[in-house]
């Protein structure tokens, strides 16, 4: 079910009423049933895969704890093979077969192509990562296995974050399900406000930027100019940010309505002054997952076991190979295409360069480091979005090389509005940050002024959301 739909708002409304009327046990059953309904609305065919995956892993985790070390490891391997295998089959099999065919043709071995019709189940990358974290945490003894199947299912399929995260840890969410939260208007108001902001980001900003980006990327890459490449990089960077952070806003808001706290997934990522800081601000739950279950185990360091903090680790020794593996996986997690691998490796290189440069800036003043960090990080991060959106690696290379073609800076190939909107969004982003973090706080203490400001802000958001509300645009991260 799409968040930006009337049916979701209706479901949430009915769910909220029933939830606050119920006792704890009924609440858990209600979450379970609503989540199944939420997932089933998009098509029933993938529900069984989800349920089978939950049941299988619940059993593994439940019995894993009582076994001796070697059996435990064996069961862990079975679980990991199952989960990664499931992901591989649905997400990567076609990609690998196609590449194997290309490779065999390259070697001169003729293999007839064949067609596989495999459709990616919604949210599989997200719920598989949640399940893996749970099994690994149980294996490591960090958490106890959950005996209640429904409760464990609720952790995996909790509808606000089922399809596109945030990727939570069981220790963060299951205790909240078990707590009998008292009804508070605060929950409703904060939750609804978050949903409203999320809808604004999606239906007003992301969905209106999308046609410009689609058009830009439909132009043959070799006819684009340097300014076009920069514009498209920034524009898509903003589109994906608005789109994905809107999903997280609605997820957090929907959970908050019933008194459940989900950690923030974004924190003004484009204000990062280094790649490390960017991964502390962007898709925080995924970068924290990658930190805890891939990078830190690879460097044999202590795991944090929480979905906050992002990929921000202070290690004395730079270990390139684990970092390389981590970013390769991070890239491929986003999609079965070489362009995503290029995206991951770009970030790997960017982090490496930053680690080399960072010690040289130690003696400089804080403000210089901050500004220079921002000025270099933002364009570099935006250019990283090129492989994320481009159709092929050759397009990516052509676009990246264009920025070094000084002659093409005098040429514009898209409608004037595209450049204008990009500049407006760019400025709007920084103005919003200043308003939220600096100016808003100053008059927040003046209750009446802040209330008037909030009324107008909500009024304008309602105005735009109602005008642009359409349920035909999916979220970008649904495809991952």
């Amino acid at each position, binding site marked *: 079910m799409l968040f930006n739909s009337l049916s979701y708002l209706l479901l949430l409304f009915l769910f909220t009423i029933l939830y606050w009327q119920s006792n704890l046990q009924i609440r858990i059953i209600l979450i379970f049933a609503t989540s199944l309904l939420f997932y089933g609305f998009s098509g029933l065919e993938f529900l069984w895969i989800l349920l089978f995956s939950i049941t299988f892993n619940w059993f593994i985790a439940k019995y894993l704890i009582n076994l001796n070390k070697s059996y435990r490891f064996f069961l862990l391997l079975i679980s990991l093979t199952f989960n990664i295998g499931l992901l591989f089959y649905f997400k990567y099999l076609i990609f690998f077969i196609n590449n194997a065919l290309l490779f065999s043709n390259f070697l001169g071995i003729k293999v007839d192509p064949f067609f596989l019709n495999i459709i990616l189940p919604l949210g599989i990358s997200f719920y598989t990562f949640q399940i893996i974290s749970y099994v690994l945490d149980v294996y490591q003894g960090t958490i106890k296995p959950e005996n209640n199947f429904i409760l464990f299912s609720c952790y995996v399929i909790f509808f606000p974050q089922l399809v596109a995260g945030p990727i939570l840890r069981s220790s963060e969410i299951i205790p909240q399900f078990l707590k009998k939260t008292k009804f508070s208007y605060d929950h409703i108001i904060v939750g609804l406000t978050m949903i409203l902001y999320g809808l604004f980001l999606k239906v007003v900003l992301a969905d209106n930027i999308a046609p410009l980006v689609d058009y830009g990327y439909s132009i043959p890459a070799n006819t684009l100019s340097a300014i076009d490449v920069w514009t498209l990089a920034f524009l898509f960077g903003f589109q994906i940010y608005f789109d994905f952070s809107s999903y997280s806003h609605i997820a957090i808001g929907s959970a908050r309505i019933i008194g459940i706290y989900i950690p923030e997934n974004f924190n003004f990522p484009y204000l990062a002054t280094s790649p490390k800081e960017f991964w502390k601000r962007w898709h925080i739950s995924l970068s924290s997952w990658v930190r805890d279950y891939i990078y830190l185990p690879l460097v044999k360091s202590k795991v944090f076991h929480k979905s906050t903090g992002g990929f921000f680790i202070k290690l004395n020794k730079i270990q390139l190979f684990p970092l390389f593996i981590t970013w390769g996986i991070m890239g491929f997690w986003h999609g079965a295409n070489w362009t995503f691998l290029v995206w991951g490796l770009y970030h790997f290189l960017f982090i490496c360069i930053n680690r080399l440069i960072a010690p040289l800036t130690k003696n400089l003043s804080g403000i210089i480091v901050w500004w220079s960090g921002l000025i270099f990080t933002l364009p570099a991060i935006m250019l990283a979005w090129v492989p994320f959106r481009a159709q092929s690696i050759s397009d990516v290379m052509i676009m990246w090389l264009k920025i070094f073609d000084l002659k093409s800076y005098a040429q514009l190939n898209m409608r004037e509005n595209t450049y204008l909107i990009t500049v407006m969004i760019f400025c709007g982003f920084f103005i919003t940050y200043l308003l939220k973090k600096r100016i808003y706080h100053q008059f927040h203490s003046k209750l009446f002024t802040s209330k008037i400001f909030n009324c107008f802000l909500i009024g304008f958001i309602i105005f735009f959301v*109602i005008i642009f509300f359409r349920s035909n645009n999916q979220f970008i991260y649904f495809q991952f």
Partner: protein
Amino acid sequence: MKKFLLIKKDLTLIIGFFLGIILLYLFLPKNKISFNDLAYEEYTQRVMGYANGERVHCNDLDDIYLCIEGYKKNGNGDSVILWFGNSQLHSINSYSQGDETASSLLHMALRKKGYYLITFSQPNANLQENYLLFSYLLNQFPVKNIILSTVYDDMREDEIRTSIYKTLEDTYVLNEVDKTTIGKNLIINYKKKYLINNDTKAREETNQDYLENLINKKLEKIWQLWSERDTLRSHLFHNLYLLRNTIFQIDPTTIRKKILGPYTKNMTAYKEILNLAEKKKIETLVYIQPIRNDIKIPYDLNEYNLFKKEIATISKISGAYFSNLENIVPSKFWGKTSSINFKNKEDLDFMHFQAEGHQLLSKNILYELNKINK
């Protein structure tokens, strides 16, 4: 006190909500007008050509059945001449009752010679759209000639309307355009759009879409504003457009620079139209569209001259007839248009002329066609 503050918090959201609704009602325009027709407010009238009570002038695949029906009734299987152009062909500035467009006038003139003229025009039509439409129409009518209007302004356009993209649902068109680079590009973009539509179609069958449609319909019934959201969107975009033009001091005389990407695609599509016509042994008349010439035209003159030269050269290479009609309509037959910014009340119209201009265009085209069909 705490309770009081909580209530105040509630009120913020509720007051904000009602404020938003009030703003929507205040913003709702009194006259409903679609975004495409915003140019037709008080100065220009949209007029589709008729002959003997039947439509001989259509926009796209959404109304093509009217022209097909007309041909079936009155065409007697005669050879068809297709005319492709932009809103100039279906707009009359300072319209008076009984005024006719060039499409109707030329149709009547050609009918006497045993030809049946059908005109297709859309606002800001680009040559890629014409390419698709022409490929489609080849299979619908016994085409003898095509008349192709070339407009420098529209070389900046690159969007393909859904009502034109539909031509690619026809296997014949799909196979035909797949033979060319520009056609392949159009198919790729169409498939991207088609897949999205397909997703929507698939979801129509899902429970969510059923429920979504149901709630939408109920909401439209009980709350009129919900059904007016299309109008609100058009109105908002139009006001943003006016605001942009006011801030950047844009008016109809502002120079429009060439945009290389769309220009190249449209020029390639132009070549393919001529190639296809040549292949099908259809003779083509290409003309440079009339433009108001009593004041400085809103183009970079070097770019505009290069464009005309390129159009003429390609037509010569492809064996098409070329005619430059840019100066055939004198200044007195042009008119004004509602302003494109908040500053001015009205502006000069560079695109749409009065009924006399249509008569001149029709005469000139007829003269050129006579040279072709001696």
